[in-house]
């Protein structure tokens, strides 16, 4: 049984439909990438999984239980955490306070401040500084750490590389194997196809709110991905 499964998932912003029947499956321990152009529905999909965008109850199942439309707090307590697009740290909180916010879900697990500071030592040095005073890469570390502090079973990462220099992106993605080694299941939304193929076992390509391609990362060719990504 997949850990997360969506069947015919639709999502709306008011009258505008953003997702048109997404069928998606995620097995425990997998790293799955979702790629697609701007406006393809990738972020909306993650928001649906985390309760930020309303969805029919049965359209999303987590560990066999229907979770569509549950409040975000209930979903994070069940074990799905999101690293949001643009990081969205709390500007009036310090680095450490931002990390502690993630622990509100009170789930048991291996992640705590010590583990995070061991993975991202710079955050310990800057723990008393306002989170938004950090560089973009360091802020992304805080956003990842904040999500990990809830000790999720599934980590959803929305555009980790957005606005970051290539060297910083490599540093951020270098942490991924350590996270996966803890038994974490990961979904990465990424516009950089090469990075997505490199870090994931399977890829879903979204186009205009629909899945246009799905397969094992190593099996998909550049031509297939280009066709699914751009629609030609």
């Amino acid at each position: 049984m997949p850990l997360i499964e969506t069947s015919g998932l639709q999502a709306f912003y008011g009258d505008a439909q953003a997702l048109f029947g997404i069928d998606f499956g995620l097995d425990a321990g997998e790293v799955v990438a979702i790629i697609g152009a701007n406006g393809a529905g990738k972020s909306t999909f993650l928001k649906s999984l985390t309760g930020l965008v309303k969805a029919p109850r049965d359209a999303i199942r987590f560990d066999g239980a229907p979770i569509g439309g549950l409040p975000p707090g209930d979903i994070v307590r069940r074990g799905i955490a999101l690293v949001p697009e643009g990081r969205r740290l709390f500007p009036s909180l310090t680095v450490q306070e931002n990390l502690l916010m993630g622990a509100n879900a009170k789930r048991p697990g291996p992640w705590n401040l010590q583990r995070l500071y061991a993975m991202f030592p710079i955050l310990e040095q800057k723990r008393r500084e306002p989170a938004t005073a950090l560089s973009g890469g360091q802020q992304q570390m805080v956003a990842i750490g904040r999500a990990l502090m809830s000790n999720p079973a599934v980590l959803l990462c929305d555009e980790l590389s957005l606005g970051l220099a290539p060297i910083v992106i490599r540093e951020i993605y270098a942490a991924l194997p350590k996270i996966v080694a803890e038994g974490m299941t990961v979904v990465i939304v990424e516009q950089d196809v090469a990075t997505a193929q490199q870090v994931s076992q399977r890829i879903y390509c979204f186009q205009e709110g629909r899945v246009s391609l799905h397969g094992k990362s190593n099996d998909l060719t550049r031509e297939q991905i280009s066709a699914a990504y751009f629609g030609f």
Partner: protein
Amino acid sequence: MTETLIQGLLLGGLYCLFALGQSLMFGVMRLTNTAQGDFIVLGAFGAIALASLVELHPALIALVLLPVAFGAGYLLQRHVLNTTLGRDPLPSLVVTFGLAIVIQNALLEVFSADPRSLDSAGINTRSVVVGDLAVGLLPLIVFGVALAATAALQLLFNRTALGRSFRAVSDDREIAELMGLDAKRVYAFATGIAFMLILVAGVLQAMRTTVSPSDGPLLLLFAFEAVIIGGMGSFWGSFAGAMVLGVTQQIGFRLDPGWGIWFGHLVFLAVLVVRPQGLFPRTRG
């Protein structure tokens, strides 16, 4: 001049207590409570009513009513004000304005329009000699309570998990909920605490002078002026704004007994024109 300054600062202490609840609710929820003054009057009348039933020291009356005030604020936010929150500030303004009218009329119905006061157990007639000056004990207590309440609120905001939650929901409610926070519950806690401050302000006001059901709008005005002068949502800013307002009014009273309140309004308008964000516009800890 020293006496005017001291009297102004002590008056500012009372205005600070009027303003802190307003500052807290705006800082956490961006909610402007236009019934703030009427809730202070309601607190004062609640204390007067309790004092008429049981003979207790005013401090004990306040202590007994504090949990009631917290509960009232919590329930009001949870079941009424939370439904008005959103991008549009108008619904909360209309609802709190409506509450102000209801409170005024209910107090008139129950207590009549007669001014009343709370027996201060002799505190308001005692004074403390400081150098050449005799300073009233009650104003000193009011100032001390205002100072302690401001410091306590700032500590709560900066050093506790609840304060962290207040700042987080104020920064980004959606992400705070994604972290497992129940924003509506956090808002209710904030209003509960604001109502405890409102009660303390009401009890001290009733000990200091007479209160009548129609006093609310003027108290709201003083609270609002202190918050605007200091900077919306900043506790020490509200404290400083209240001090500026108190000292300015006292200087006006010194020049002419009819000018005091006007002087305060003039400073308020001057701040609005020159520095509309207030003197210390930090909303969060």
